[in-house]
């Protein structure tokens, strides 16, 4: 197949996919007797046209950045980690334990401690499937998805039997101590001039952005990243070069699980401030779409996370202000994932043909 110019590959393909996804979503909205134009207006108004909306969009985007980066890192080693959901749940457990049982003097120290704990819990949860893949050949897709269910059950069990304070009805941990409260964007000097109302987006956003930069450095500027990418492109080649497959699989999955686990500092520590049963609420899975759409590049992941943050917040606004049910956001997300992920090749081939029409045939045979 012919190749597209780089700019078309990076920007045009996702854009066309996105437009197609929204076009079909519009048809669905028409089909249920609602006005698609109104829907898009409400979504845009409620998520990116004011600071309050941005406060939510960025909050969701922060979570998606972590889970998207988790998928992206593993993907470069050809490991399809779809266990981000479970790793994020375990990360939540790590955050809760760190916040509840360590008397932190200041939120900044609590943030460092909770981040380390979240990453460690997520990494351990990814390490088991990684080890099974490296040593036993159990396929990582199967094992990580099974570990999502195990994580959910484990968390329910711990919440009901261990972490739930005596006398509390709902299965959730106690509230975290005030010293662990993370500054939201409206608590930060200068930013509070923009974010005048309380918003859930918090300092974790900056950690997520820093992680995107670190992932980029790791993948393209370190020996480890070189080995990860080489292994991911060609396992046989890696054997020739003397790259240890077990080492790469373990390390990349620990990093991936750690990133997914770190998502919990955004939602558990930054927003809920206690551990709830379904704390990850699907962000682990959305990370897959984010990584796909972001072309497995950290910058792409950040942009795709923003898009999905917009879809999440905009979808919630739909449920709030229109007769369109909030579930419509799942339909839109599903379509975006379908077009940017599964049908990517279709769009790409279409564009290749269009480009071929406009290209002069001049080059010599190789």
């Amino acid at each position: 197949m012919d190749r597209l110019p780089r700019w078309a590959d990076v920007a045009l393909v996702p854009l066309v996919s996105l437009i197609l996804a929204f076009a079909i979503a519009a048809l669905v909205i028409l089909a249920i007797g609602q006005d698609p134009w109104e829907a898009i207006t409400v979504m845009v108004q409620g998520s990116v046209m004011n600071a309050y909306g941005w406060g939510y969009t960025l909050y969701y985007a922060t979570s998606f950045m972590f889970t998207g980066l988790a998928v992206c890192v593993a993907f470069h080693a050809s490991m399809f980690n779809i266990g981000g959901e479970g790793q994020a749940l375990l990360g939540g457990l790590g955050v809760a334990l760190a916040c509840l049982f360590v008397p932190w003097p200041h939120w900044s120290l609590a943030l460092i401690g909770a981040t380390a704990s979240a990453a460690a819990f997520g990494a351990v949860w990814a390490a088991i499937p990684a080890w099974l893949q490296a040593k036993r050949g159990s396929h990582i897709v199967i094992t990580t998805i099974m570990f999502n269910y195990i994580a959910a059950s484990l968390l329910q069990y711990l919440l009901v039997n261990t972490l739930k304070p005596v006398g509390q009805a709902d299965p959730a941990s106690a509230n975290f101590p005030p010293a662990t409260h993370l500054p939201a964007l409206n608590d930060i000097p200068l930013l509070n001039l923009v974010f005048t109302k309380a918003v859930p987006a918090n300092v974790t956003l900056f950690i997520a952005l820093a992680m995107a930069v670190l992932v980029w450095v790791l993948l393209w500027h370190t020996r480890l990243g070189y080995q990860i990418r080489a292994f991911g492109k060609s396992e046989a080649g890696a054997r020739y070069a003397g790259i240890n497959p077990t080492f790469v699989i373990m390390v990349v999955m620990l990093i991936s699980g750690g990133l997914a686990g770190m998502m919990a500092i955004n939602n558990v520590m930054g927003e809920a401030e206690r551990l709830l049963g379904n704390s990850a609420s699907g962000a682990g899975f959305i990370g897959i779409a984010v990584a796909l759409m972001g072309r497995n590049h950290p910058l792409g992941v950040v942009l795709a996370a923003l898009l999905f943050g917009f879809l999440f917040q905009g979808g919630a606004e739909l449920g709030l202000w229109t007769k369109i049910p909030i579930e419509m956001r799942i339909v839109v997300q599903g379509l975006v994932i379908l077009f940017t992920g599964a049908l990517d090749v279709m769009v790409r081939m279409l564009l290749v043909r269009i480009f071929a029409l406009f290209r002069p045939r001049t080059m010599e045979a190789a």
Partner: protein
Amino acid sequence: MENGAYAIELKGISKAFGPVQANRDINIAVPRGTIHGIIGENGAGKSTLMSILYGFYRADAGQILINGKPTAIPDSQSAIRAGIGMVFQHFKLVQNFTVLENVILGAEDGPMLNSSLAKARKTLAELSQEYELDVDPDALVEDLSVGHQQRVEILKALYRQADILILDEPTGVLTPAEADHLFRILKGLKAQGKTIILITHKLREIMEATDNVSVMRRGTMVDTVRTAETSPEQLAELMVGRKVLLEVEKAPASPGAVVLSVQDLRVKDEHGVERLKGVSFEIRAGEILGIAGVAGNGQSELMEALGGMIRATGAVTLKGQPLPLSGKGADGQSRRRAGIAHVPEDRHHHGLILDFTAWENMAFGYFNEPEYQKNRLLMDNAAIRADTAKKMETFDVRPPIPGLQAKSFSGGNQQKIVVAREFEQDPDLLLVGQPTRGVDIGAIEFIHKQLIALRDAGKAVLLVSVELDEIMSLSDRIAVMFDGKIMGFRDPDTTDERELGLLMAGITGKGEAA
């Protein structure tokens, strides 16, 4: 000539893949009942042309005439109906079917197989008799030798009543004796009035077997000449577009101390089958030991075991130091540190990462080198790029763009990237597998010169190649491998292809133990 004297005429065939013009205005006429060679470097457009003839691709322009009649060949079924049969380089046989089942596959008469099988058995018996094509019809294909599998492919085509047979690089996997047998079969087919197109890059085969030969270069048909009126030198010049040195110039070797000593090296594959059955040899400094043999007789396992890619047992020392053959220290990194450079047999799967750029590939296997690091944490990508640019210039890699992906280079230039990387490491021992496979003549000449230069600089070289010419012209000593064992050592100055060919087939002439 009367209408239809040509079995095939191609008129003005052009085919482009995007911006690449693979075939440009090709004209060729193949007289019926002749063997017609098509020769050209990798990427000259031979395979594209044959794929058009066999209905895999549609030409952008031009006309195909079969027996004088314009014929459209939109798919391979039409090609078969037009009487064209194709024997691919990589056989398309079902391994766990019998010969008979393979022959009728896709040409069954109806849903029930018995009548087809009976008919095929009869036809096959006739064909075998007529053309020296004897194969046991009830043998499973997986039990057959490569030469016999190829005969099954030919039988398949003949069973489909092919009058025109296209063979794509048919001798790449054969011993010299098997190749000779193949050419006898082809001459028998020709005597019966069949037309044969032989695609090859081996000049010797063209000279030996064909009546006419067409030379392709860069997508165009350069010339068609009578084989009897040309010479290998002239063909090589036509292929490359300049004069080429076919003989390798080298001074006698002056071997020094033993660099590599291998004792009783054994390798088992993942099924527990022994692939290397106790191999022992030594290589001295300033010496090239060539391993001759048909592909799949343990050469790959030997290279991979020495290169640290697979586990082995036995005793191997490099300059007196033992090399671990399993466990810790038996990996590519340790081998490189010990002073072994390795040009692997398969550059697409091992030697290169095709999606990586040239500069990323230049660090492949050497990503831990101190000169490629900026500090303890970061790699110095700029330094690798600069180093790559330098090596690309030294080894004349074209185009000399370090940022270009490896897959965008031609086969010869890809191989030059691998060769540049490994030759420039100043190793004590160089493992070189199939250094010129799929490489054009100009690059072969260059790689051979570099290899001799390394030998003259006092390196020990282990050369594995299925090209007997290459082994004979480069090696200072030749070891012949068959069935995981070394059948014997020969001096290239006193042996000949016949003797080596017998050893390659497992037949020892001088009473040596098999």
